[in-house]
């Protein structure tokens, strides 16, 4: 960092302050790139949107895969980018584009589940014996290492999906964001477009219901 800038701020350069300023500058440079591409898109160059999609496809796909069934991830990721393009006029640049796309992704997943729950013929699967046995085994684990190993088994994902299917669409989104992904309540509320008190109450009730569902499985 040039000495002149530190003297202007009146603060003493330290490694921590320098690292923080560098990260802010990098983010500013990245945001400037996005701003340049967005300007081109708003000027009518639709093909420039491919730059945004290529850059954020991994992030959006990761968010969607955390909420939606695996076989619908590609379709929903496609839907997220289409919706994002349609609502680009609503992006004012107050937050990084990645954060804004994350919000669009979460709301798209929320709409997906609301549509799924409206379909009366949605099948409610029974829990397999393997999953029940897995739940008993997981509930009796003693060490964290064993938990890591056990979590990688297919039954863990099946059990989680089965339990989340028992919740409402909004409750499953809230409990996934706040309890499974451990995001702050304020962040989850912003992503879902709900108020913080609403998310707090829902998170508490949804988690309680989830524990009751899991408790019934292991007989607790």
């Amino acid at each position, binding site marked *: 960092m040039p000495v002149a800038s530190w003297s202007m701020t009146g603060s003493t350069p330290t490694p921590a302050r320098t690292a923080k300023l560098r990260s802010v500058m990098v983010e500013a440079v990245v945001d400037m790139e996005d701003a340049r591409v967005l300007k081109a898109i708003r000027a009518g160059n*639709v*093909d420039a*949107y*491919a730059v945004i*999609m*290529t850059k954020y*496809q*991994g992030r959006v*796909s*990761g968010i*969607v*895969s*955390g909420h939606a069934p*695996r076989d619908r*991830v*590609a379709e929903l*990721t*496609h839907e997220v*980018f*289409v919706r994002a*393009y349609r609502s680009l006029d609503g992006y004012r640049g107050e937050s990084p584009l990645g954060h804004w796309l994350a919000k669009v992704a979460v709301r798209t997943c929320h709409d997906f589940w609301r549509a799924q729950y409206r379909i009366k013929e949605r099948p409610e699967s029974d829990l397999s014996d393997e999953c029940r046995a897995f*739940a008993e085994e*997981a*509930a*009796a*684990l003693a060490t964290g290492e064993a*938990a*890591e190993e*056990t*979590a*990688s*088994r297919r039954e*863990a*994902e099946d*059990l*989680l999906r089965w*339990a989340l299917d028992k919740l409402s669409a909004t409750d499953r989104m809230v409990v*996934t964001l706040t*309890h*499974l*992904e*451990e995001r702050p309540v304020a962040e989850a509320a912003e992503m879902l477009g709900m108020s913080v008190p609403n998310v707090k109450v829902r998170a508490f009730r949804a988690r309680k219901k989830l*524990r009751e569902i*899991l*408790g019934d499985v*292991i007989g*607790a």
Partner: protein
Amino acid sequence: MDGNDSRRIDRLEAVLRAAQARRSAPLPDAGLAGSVLAAIKASPAAAPPPAGDDGSHRLDRLEAVLRLAHADRSGPPLDPGMAASVLATLKAEAAAPVVPENRVLWRMAAGAGVLAAATVLFALTFGSGLEEELGRLLFYDPSGQVVVSLLGV
């Protein structure tokens, strides 16, 4: 109780308090720990912990495993053609023919329908005195002559 009795009681309390303070503990029993442990081991097995506590811990462990499973969840591989597919969708939407705005036409049709219904109602009730009332209301025409002249009747 008079003052004398009260003072006597105070003195007695002071004596008893002093006696309590002077009480000395008995000599330590060297075999106390052994006898206590023997008594504990000989007693029936301790009651199991409340079911709620154990169930809660098991649920906590199960939740922790599921949380890890969610964190480790991997999505399908990225689709390299997704960007092109999205662009194709957006361009198709932009090129789609614009459907003419029908709202104004529907409103005009609705207005004409309301007018036709009002005319029919008016015709059916003509002669009942309703038109005079309307004339009074709209034109302050007590005799209804304005309405009659408007209708050419």
